[in-house]
């Protein structure tokens, strides 16, 4: 995997996340997630990833499996190896040949809000 900058979060293969996962930055998931995922930045779901969660992100590139609803406020790219079981909401959608979608697709330009990480007030 390429080196990364800033407050990017990476969940590699061999690690499972359980609970409400909220990130202010970009997120890369190659492992497993059960719960909810919210990324204020860009989300990349690798081809070995298995997500059993509702997902909200600004932009997303998916090549793994998502079982849950996916909401993307800007652009969603479903690559050839992706498998989507759930509803999709996105502004811009790109689907590669071979991608599987089992759910409803909505592109009505509705506003999608991403929860921010809780910030402690400075004294």
């Amino acid at each position: 995997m390429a080196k990364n900058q800033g407050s990017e979060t990476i969940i590699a293969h061999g690690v499972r996340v359980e609970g409400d996962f909220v990130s202010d930055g970009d997120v890369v998931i190659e492992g497993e997630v059960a719960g909810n995922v919210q990324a204020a930045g860009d989300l990349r779901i690798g081809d070995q990833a298995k997500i059993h969660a509702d997902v909200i992100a600004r932009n997303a590139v998916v090549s793994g499996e998502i079982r849950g609803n996916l909401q993307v406020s800007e652009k969603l790219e479903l690559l050839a190896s992706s498998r989507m079981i759930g509803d999709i909401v996105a502004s811009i959608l790109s689907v590669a040949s071979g991608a599987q979608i089992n759910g409803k697709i909505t592109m009505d330009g509705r506003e999608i809000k991403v929860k921010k990480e809780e910030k402690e007030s400075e004294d």
Partner: protein
Amino acid sequence: MYYYVYDEFIQDPRFERDLALIETRVTDLGIAGKIARLALFRDPKELIRDEIRKGAKTIVAVGNDVTLRRVIDAVGDTGAVIGTIPLGKDNLMLSDILGIPVGVEACDILSARIIEQLDTGEVNGRRFLHTVSAPQVSQLEVQVERTYKLKAYKKCSLEVRNLAIADEDVRAANPVDGKLECVLRTLAKGLFRKNKYNVSIVPAKEFHVTLSEIVKCQADGEEFESNELRFKIIPKALKVITGKGRKF
């Protein structure tokens, strides 16, 4: 007022010339001050705290990373500014990250006084500036800020970074971002039986790590044993003089 803490190893005759140059340069720059020489039974904490009570505002560690860590421990939350003049060849990683050159050139950096407020980490009540690491264990669970859990289901090692340079597979850890970085390396099968690791990186303010067995962990090179590690960040806890070439 400056207070210089000389480590025991630099009192060796081979550092005599370096020390003479440093003492001349700090006098020229108008930043000369009292000197304390560490010895086997001299507690640096007591010496430094005493001098801070008497009005020392800047404590300068003259030696290597070990000297700097001892000064950081002693200064604690007193609010004094920490500087360093690195000497020798080994154990100079922290001063390199802070952008401080070795020897007499460091005096000019001290005099320029670019002060950064750095975060420090805390693990089980012990402060650290650099990293804490635990060796590979069969099972590991990390509770992140009471919102989600990370579970490694393969053999995994742990590293929590506050101030660290980028290495082969992990980016540099920034000590002014108000977060620690939890790095999990899970074992993956590599070609020709060569070990390969998948790296997870999670930035957060608090972690609670549970390991499957009691292991020897290292906090800034100091060993301790535990199977439960509670981490938190203390933002802007240290005032440190840094150079223009600092790596964060």
